[in-house]
């Protein structure tokens, strides 16, 4: 068979080009550290890589959401904690003052202290986050206060969701303080994958989401036994008001107050435990997410990343082949019968 001179030449060139191509490809893979650099490299794996990346980004986002929720819940825990301490002190005083050995003066002094406690508790009930949102006003986070003075039952305090808050306006003189929406609404933050990807207005929550707001009536409201004048909201603040009124008049604390304070403390402890539970849930979701991510990352690496050892071996191999092809080309080009015809 005739080997034409052109074929000699072009075949040598082709094999050099082919090896150059190989070297280039491995160079790209090694320099990016990735086996797949474009969809065409492995379209089937690409689909998996995309969905793995998506899941991992989402887990990261849930972790961020969890961080935010944790900060918010810690704040709420702090406020509830503080209120519990205040109530403890108020209860101590109440039990103390029930003892007949204290004078009217002593009781009036205790009344002063209860006044301070009222301010403190009130402060906590109207607590705002760094974003300026009320912690205990449900979703009505931008109301001026969660608990306002009760104009319908003077001397007492009313939650803005209660009908006792009717009849007064915020400082702009226009916006009514009463806001039935404050009785509802709870902000849920997503910390895990949701089956139906849906949140309803009256959502009761599901394992994928954690509640980060509360409405004040639910946290601070209790079923009281204390006898109030009129029909103010049944909440711990008003129990304290009743206590202060009695003590300031030099009277013994009315019956039922001690029980109501106990009930308030219990109620807040339950809330605190709930918050703790939610914090735990965030923590465990985070841990689960991280370990899930770890195994996803492992799979992604298996699919996408270059095995460096294999890559370097491959590179050396292609390099050698290229050099060989170049040498062969130079040698073969030298061979011609004309060289011998002198």
């Amino acid at each position: 068979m005739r080997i034409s001179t052109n074929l000699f030449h072009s075949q040598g060139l082709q094999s050099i080009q082919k090896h150059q191509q190989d070297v280039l490809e491995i160079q790209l893979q090694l320099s990016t550290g990735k086996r797949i650099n474009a969809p065409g490299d492995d379209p089937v794996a690409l689909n998996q890589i995309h969905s793995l990346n998506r899941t991992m980004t989402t887990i990261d986002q849930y972790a961020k959401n969890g961080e935010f929720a944790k900060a918010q819940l810690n704040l709420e825990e702090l406020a509830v904690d503080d209120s519990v301490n205040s109530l403890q002190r108020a209860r101590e005083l109440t039990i103390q003052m029930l003892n007949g050995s204290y004078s009217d003066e002593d009781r009036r002094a205790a009344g002063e202290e209860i006044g301070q406690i009222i301010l403190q508790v009130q402060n906590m009930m109207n607590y705002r986050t760094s974003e300026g949102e009320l912690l205990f006003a449900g979703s009505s986070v931008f109301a001026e206060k969660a608990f306002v003075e009760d104009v319908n039952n003077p001397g007492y305090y009313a939650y803005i969701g209660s009908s006792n808050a009717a009849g007064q306006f915020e400082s702009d003189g226009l916006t009514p303080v009463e806001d039935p929406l404050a009785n509802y609404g709870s902000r849920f933050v997503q910390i895990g994958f949701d089956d139906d990807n849906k949140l309803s207005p009256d959502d009761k929550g599901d394992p994928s989401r954690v509640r980060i707001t509360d409405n004040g009536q639910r946290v601070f409201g209790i079923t009281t036994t204390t006898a109030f004048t009129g029909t103010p909201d049944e909440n711990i603040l008003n129990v304290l008001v009743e206590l202060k009124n009695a003590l300031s008049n030099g009277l013994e604390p009315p019956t039922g107050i001690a029980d109501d304070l106990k009930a308030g403390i219990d109620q807040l402890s339950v809330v605190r435990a709930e918050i703790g539970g939610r914090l735990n849930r965030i923590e465990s979701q985070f841990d689960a997410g991280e370990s899930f991510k770890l195994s996803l990352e492992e799979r992604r690496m298996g699919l996408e990343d270059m095995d460096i050892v294999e890559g370097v071996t491959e590179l050396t191999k292609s390099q050698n082949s290229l050099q060989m092809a170049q040498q062969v080309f130079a040698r073969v080009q030298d061979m011609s019968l004309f060289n011998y015809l002198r």
Partner: protein
Amino acid sequence: MADMLTIASLSLNTFKKALEVTSHNVANVSTEGYNAQRVIIQSSAPGNAGNNYQGSGAMVGGIERVYSEALQTQLYSSQSLKERYETQLSLSTQIEGIVASNDEGIQEFLNRYFSSLQALSDNPTSTTNRQQVLDEASSLESHINNLTSVLADTNYQTNNQVSDIVVEVNNRLKSIQEMNTQIDNVLKNTQNTPNDLLDQRDQAILEISQYMDIKTYYHDNGSVDIYAGNGQIPLLSSNSIMQLEASRSEFQDENRTEIYAYIGDQKQLISDKIVGGELGGILDFRDNMLGKAQNDLGLTLNGIVASMNWQHYQGYDMDGQPGGDIFAPLATSPIDSVENTGAVYGEDISVSFNPNFGVSEPPYTSNVSGATPPTNLDDQPQTYGEKLGYLDTANKEVGNFQPREYMLMYNQGTDSFDFFDYTTKQAVVDGSGNPIAVARGSSANVEGLYFDFTGVTNVPADEDSFLVKPHKQILEDFTKVISEQGELATRGQSPIDSNSDGSLDDEPPAAAAIGDNVNIANMASLQSAKLLFSGVDGKATESLLGGYSKMAVNVGMYVRGTDIQYTAQSNVHDVMVAQRESYSGVSLDEEAANLVRYQQAYEASAQIVATVQELFRTLLDLSRV
């Protein structure tokens, strides 16, 4: 003895010729398309010398090409297939990196957009978080715009390439025509074959085969006919040229260059018949990769725009106003065919996303509907339950999207518009396999899109056609329209259950408190929700980002397939080249050997002359004595 001298001079001539041909071969060792030539040396007719026949030497019987027509025609076809896949591969790898790159692609921008929605749902009253959502939506928009302009450039580039190649093909045809004439003249007037002219003509044909797939018919009289489209479309037949023409498609405004041929004075579209060469590669790339990627990507974008907007309509902004559009909703009109004769134009028809047309067409303008039942289409529905129902319908329609370009053809018999897939030219069918048609003057949802023919008051001519590409359109029209962060509708329906029946469905639509995050949380959840590509059971199978992945995988598959085809075809081509080279190519070593052989023969012939001279001298010397 005079015969001996004749033989000697004849053979001197013969080997001189042989040496010349050998030199010609050596000189053309690098000439493209050159076929080695051989001198045919034959013994001249023997004469009668008394009792026996005696030879009278050798002479040149002709110079012929070492040529195989079969090898040459196989070369044409392997060449055009190789060129096709090479073109396809280089164009598609170029686009692959742009539309479907692994990092910093659309996926990245979409992820960031959804992350910003998540962050806002943590803290819906934060102005920083609200602004961030708007910023991410803007960067998504500008990324899509960049991408669209690159794709448009590519489209422009392919149009130009098609026109340029058609010019080249026509030029080649012209020169082949001239060569045919010359070859014909030579063959008529002499007995020699014009070898080098034939080589040049084959080379020109080979060049055409680089541009498109052709079939050749060599006639005995030396002329050649060239056909395209698997032998159906004559390009050069009986030495007259049928020129190709590159011009815009029937739908002029779609800006797509097609290839036409004139067959018997009839202009015929032949783009779909060209499957090889650079042209075949460009055309395949344009339909199956570029166009498909644009439609797939556009479908995902349409899904994003529709589902985002509709979820946003459900909520209420900082001022308690119902949510408006986040992205500009799809609104397009078909383009006309130049062949239309009726007085109906594309702009009389409109295509948009309007899943509950005639019942409820948000964005809602009023907070709470005044009239019961609501009178205006953009009034809030009477109850929250109804509103949720409309949202469900909208999401279902998103699942019905198909990555298609629609050709609407008027059917006089039924007074309606028939739906065709523009790429496959097949009728678009509904779930039960019946072709879809919408009556003139009415409107309907087809594959998730609202086709409105109510503006068509005139009657089009039969078979008047209109072309609409809703998914390509959204790529161009993708815009963020919300501008104020306060307009982001983060809060959802008020949770107040006024009649305490345990369900909000019977409540009138109303806003929740300002700190509520229900609506924005639901918008963020669209990231994971399955919305696209409903199966037969009506359940969507892909999330919005999954729609993007699907496009990327399709692109990857195309590149991979092309790469495999290219490797295979270039191997086939290499074999063909090797075969042709080993048959017709010039081997310098062989020529060197021939040179030695002919030179020796020439020297020997010269020696004969010398011998004759010596014989004479001997004879003369004898007579002198």
